[in-house]
């Protein structure tokens, strides 16, 4: 019985040791690294068709079952991350008491036990009284350490000073920060979303398209007031800017100009400038100049929308802008066609009415204003076709993102404090023996021991000379 009990306790302990062991940590970190490599070598998240071009069906099915086509979301990758979390959590819990000790327990008295464990130590005998020595010792210690302490016990006086005690929390903070970042990432995966939407200038939307094709209702309206592209002199794009206005509950709430790297945020949603394009079937206002053929007069400008008409004063003529082709061509049979949505050869079809009766039908071309084929006694010059562009937005919602940033800031603080600060402690114990003062000096540093040794040697030399 006794034997048995010992065994179960032993295996229980071993299990705990396993979860908190650094061996497991190292194995998990290396495994995660190795497995991540696979994901960078095999293209991720392609469509089935694309994969089948490279693999036969059997190997495709096998690889798909293994999850390597979406490796970073496969159950076993997540399992590895989860194990790392458990390992970290177990290790952190185990370290809580040690961390608390570091925070609260100061040892200002130099005991014989401590002396035994410290590597940097020395004994100095000086013909000086404690009272004379005290001030000098404190002054010397003050040069390297803030606020040295003095304590007396059983007639023995102890001096103690230390630096960067809290840097020893760094590793604990670093470990906790890894957990916080992973929690933030999970929150994003479960409660976040990512979608896209295109909004023509002047139009509003209240839904975005999710990657699975479904529409998601934002619960408010977004209008694209205006979109602009600026170019460098060499023609490369410099800036994409959209002015967006949010309407919530029918009220205008806010307007912001977004550009790449400067998103708009509202109610947890962020709108990123992603792309743009021309909405070729949704034209804006058209400006036409109309003048008499062979006349010297400049004529008159009219603004009109596609499908609408305007009247030429004093003539009784009504002109309807019937159709718009951004890329007008004639095919081999002589019928008019639109070749593309790009503005290669913009053309308008005009219907000219006298009263209610159609008088003429004609095509006018922006790039060929003097085209002879146009009929009638008036010449129509296309000054401007207010092309309507759309802005392409990426819309995201990630309630975990601030948790991730908090974790990142903690991680930076934790890592900087472990690597760039070192907890240093120096003790001096003094005892009066006859006319002499016996000084025992000892010190320790958490990091950069070689550097600290030099500091210790210098202090020692100064103390020897008091």
């Amino acid at each position, binding site marked *: 019985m006794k034997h048995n009990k010992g065994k179960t306790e032993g295996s229980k302990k071993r299990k705990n040791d396993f979860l908190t062991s*650094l*061996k497991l*940590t*190292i194995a998990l*970190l*290396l495994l*995660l*690294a190795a497995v*991540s*490599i696979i*994901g*960078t*070598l095999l293209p*991720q998240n392609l469509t089935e068709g694309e994969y089948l071009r490279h693999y036969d069906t059997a190997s495709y099915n096998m690889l798909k079952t293994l999850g390597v086509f979406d490796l*970073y979301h496969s159950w076993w990758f997540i399992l590895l991350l989860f194990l790392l979390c458990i390992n970290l959590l177990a290790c952190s819990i185990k370290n809580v008491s040690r961390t608390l000790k570091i925070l609260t327990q100061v040892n200002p008295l130099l005991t014989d036990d401590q002396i035994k464990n410290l590597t940097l130590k020395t004994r100095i005998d000086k013909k000086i009284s404690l009272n004379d020595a005290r001030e000098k010792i404190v002054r010397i210690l003050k040069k390297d350490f803030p606020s040295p302490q003095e304590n007396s016990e059983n007639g023995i006086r102890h001096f103690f000073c230390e630096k960067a005690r809290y840097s020893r929390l760094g590793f604990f903070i670093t470990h906790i920060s890894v957990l916080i970042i992973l929690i933030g*990432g999970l929150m994003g995966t479960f409660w976040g979303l*990512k979608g896209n939407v295109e909004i023509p200038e002047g139009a509003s939307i209240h839904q975005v398209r999710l990657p699975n094709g479904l529409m998601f209702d934002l619960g408010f309206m977004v209008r694209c007031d205006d979109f602009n592209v600026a170019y*460098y*002199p*060499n023609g*490369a*794009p*410099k*800036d*994409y800017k959209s002015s967006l206005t949010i309407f919530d509950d029918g009220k205008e709430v806010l307007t912001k100009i977004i*550009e*790449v*790297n*400067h*998103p708009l945020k509202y109610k947890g949603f*962020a709108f*990123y*400038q*992603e792309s743009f394009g021309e909405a070729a079937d949704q034209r804006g206002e058209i400006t036409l100049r109309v003048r008499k053929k062979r006349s010297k007069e400049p004529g008159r400008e009219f603004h009109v929308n596609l499908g609408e008409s305007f009247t030429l004063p004093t003539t009784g003529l009504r002109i309807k802008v019937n159709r718009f082709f951004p890329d007008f061509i004639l095919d081999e049979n002589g019928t008019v066609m639109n070749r593309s949505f790009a503005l290669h050869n913009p053309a308008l079809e005009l219907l000219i009415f006298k009263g209610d009766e159609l008088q003429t039908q004609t095509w006018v071309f922006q790039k060929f204003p003097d085209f002879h084929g146009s009929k009638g006694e008036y010449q129509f010059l296309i000054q401007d076709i207010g092309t309507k562009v759309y802005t392409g937005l*990426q*819309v*995201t919602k*990630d309630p975990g*993102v601030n948790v*991730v*940033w908090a974790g*990142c800031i903690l*991680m*930076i603080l934790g*890592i*900087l404090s472990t*690597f*760039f600060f070192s907890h240093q402690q120096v003790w001096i114990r003094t005892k009066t023996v006859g006319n002499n003062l016996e000084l025992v000096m000892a010190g320790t540093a958490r990091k950069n021991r*070689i550097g600290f040794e030099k500091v210790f040697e210098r202090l020692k030399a100064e103390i020897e000379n008091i």
Partner: protein
Amino acid sequence: MVSSRILSVVTFVYLLSTFLYICYLAFRSKVIGNLATMVTLSGLIGQIAAFILRWKESYALGYGHIPLSNQFESMVFFALVIIFIYLVIEYKVKIKTLGAFVTPVASILLALTTLTDSFSNEIQPLVPALQSNWLTYHVITCFIGYAAFAVSFGVSIIYLIATVALKERQGILPDEGVLDDVNYKAIAIGFPMLTIGIITGAAWANYAWGSYWSWDPKETWSLITWFFYAAFLHARYTHGWRGKKAAILSIVGFVAVIFTYFGVNYLLTGLHSYA
């Protein structure tokens, strides 16, 4: 451009430093050692001048930005930081032999940028996604990290040479303990910088693309490198993996760094391939 001409001179200055450091290794002459340091320092000053000039030249062209935006500029900056970190370590540890192994890395990097046509040294305007202060922080911290890992790599090579090949010939190369300490110190600079580099990169991605992490190959490789060095630090702490084991791990780690930097751009595809 003046800055490019200065850079080609600097390439040769670093080659000269390599030559001097090797002479120092052979003859142990203090004069040669000091000369080597002076030459390297003047090379560094020249390179910093070229960096600032290029920055100014970009403003003269009408699209001013810090010269850290393409493969050419980042390689030049990489060389600069390697030399800078090396000189700091030389000053602190007072060992000059490392120079013979570190300066050639910088001159090779610079020579690659000037002698081959694969990297355009033209100053290009920044596409909108690259116009972000986060990018500047990201590139600077990453390259300080990479350069620190490069130093740890150099020290580890020397360590292996010193312990394996030159065991009988004591005194030519620095003491093993010192090399091991420098190796750890370099990683203790590199790891925090890589961490900050990854985090600032995530912040930039979040502003530019709306997600801080998308498992793009470059991101993933930087994380692989990070996992690896984290494992290294813990192995050193518990198993006391010092000396030869630590040297080998540093060399493997640097291979991951090089792959993160070059390999991903040329062998894999992703958001980061600058083109």
